[in-house]
């Protein structure tokens, strides 16, 4: 249930991978919700002995299963923003050879990838695996406000209130997709919202 086959799209759209255990002394694993299942899928005692797991359950109940893997460090937090200072600190102290594993929603993977890239890891060397919700983190191109967990297209910008069309055009820097006003030419003419992949 937690795996979703994304339809083919434009080149700007991120393509998420499948996690695999890689060589290295230290492993930073960041997951939200059902992303825990991807970590459970690759966990071995050897791997977890060098792993720092940062997990944001968002209502899912995998925390005990992750803790039972005996990672070197385990952190469970209430939200991604609450975990940011910890992630930054881990990256600041890290050495070359650190492996980064991101799994869960696109919003979590995109934002954590941005931090890892800023710390100097090439984005192509960061592993990802999508699990769980297909909701998107959207940036309104008009007011620049970010609306999290957008499930429908079109949707209403949480900041300026414009009706926004959900594009596949993605920004690695913002870790967000673009939302563009859908009724600029004909105000009020807004199609009925439906699921992004419907």
């Amino acid at each position, binding site marked *: 249930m937690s795996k979703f086959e994304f339809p083919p799209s434009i080149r700007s759209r991120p393509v998420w991978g499948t996690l695999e255990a890689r060589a*290295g002394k230290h492993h930073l694993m960041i997951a939200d919700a059902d992303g825990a299942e991807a970590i459970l899928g690759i966990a071995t005692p050897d791997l977890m002995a060098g792993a720092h797991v940062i997990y944001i359950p968002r209502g899912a109940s995998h925390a005990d299963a992750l803790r039972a893997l005996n990672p070197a460090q385990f952190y469970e937090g209430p939200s991604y923003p609450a975990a940011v200072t910890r992630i930054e600190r881990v990256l600041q102290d890290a050495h*070359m*050879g*650190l*492996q980064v594993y991101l799994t869960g929603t696109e919003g979590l993977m995109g934002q954590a990838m941005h931090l890892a890239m800023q*710390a100097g890891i090439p984005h192509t*060397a960061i592993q990802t695996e999508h699990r769980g919700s297909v909701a998107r983190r959207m940036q309104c191109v008009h007011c620049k406000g970010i609306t999290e967990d957008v499930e429908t297209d079109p949707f209403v910008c949480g900041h300026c209130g414009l009706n926004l069309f959900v594009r596949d055009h993605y920004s690695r820097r913002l870790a967000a997709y673009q939302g563009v006003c859908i009724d600029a030419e004909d105000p009020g003419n807004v199609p009925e919202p439906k699921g992004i992949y419907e």
Partner: protein
Amino acid sequence: MSGAEKIAVRVTDIVPLNELVTRFRFEPVDGGLLPTFSGGAHTVVEMRDGDITRLNPYSLMSDPFDRSAYTISVRRDDAGRGGSKFLHEKVQIGDEMTVSNPVNLFSLDLRAKKHLMIAGGIGITPFLAQIKQLDRAHGTWELHYACRSEALGSYVDYLTGTHPNDVHVYYDDRDQTIDLDTLLDGQPLGTHVYVCGPKGMIDWVRGKAHGMGWPREAIHYEEFLAPKPGKPFEVKLALSNKVVQVGENESLLEAIERAGIDAPYLCRGGACGQCETAVVQANGEIVHRDHWLEDDEKASDTKIMPCVSRFEGKTLVLDR
């Protein structure tokens, strides 16, 4: 015309550094400014030695921001095909020569937080230019430089004199070796490693870094392969409808050029991929020596890099 654009230069200085290495300075004949380059770039030097024309790549070691001259340092290779011997023995101050515009296949990744340089022997030359570039940009770097002996340690005095805390020198004849495990293990996130030197050293550094989980994108290396001499062979060029004999001491690319065919090239050292040529028929064994083709491509014998690779067998037909 294949290759990078050509520049007419005059040799204005020749400085022997030690028993094996000599430095050459080239200034433009027209008195103008040379194109700027980035650290790690090389130039292809044309050498007209009687009937033979050799085109050898050499790393530029001068300051990339100094457009008045290019300098290269050349190690004499007595067992080679004669390019370095020609420079050492025949070239005089005042001679006019032709060099190519700079081409960089070993550039710094400026996204790196730190640049870790590992040089072996004459592999020091690209780093000399990179260090000048990084010093201007206030970049963070350190150099680990292995040479055979103090007498053969080109530029050791200059490097340790100008950067006593960033340059680490290891002499083979004193059994000093780079402690690579420790060196790679403690590097801060965002470090890129660069290695230039003998093949064994490049393989050693790449293998270790890969095994310790360094991303492929953070491992940079450059090894110019000089085309090795080999048994003479014959090649048929299907597009040009010519049959060319490749001599013992010339490369396949040089033989194709000698036949008047303008074949593409850039590095002439098996690294850049420009000269890749499709094989129409190979009744024998292609001796692949490049760093460009993938192993499966080499095994399939459908492509060849004529700058360094050769052929042993009956018939070789190329799509050229």
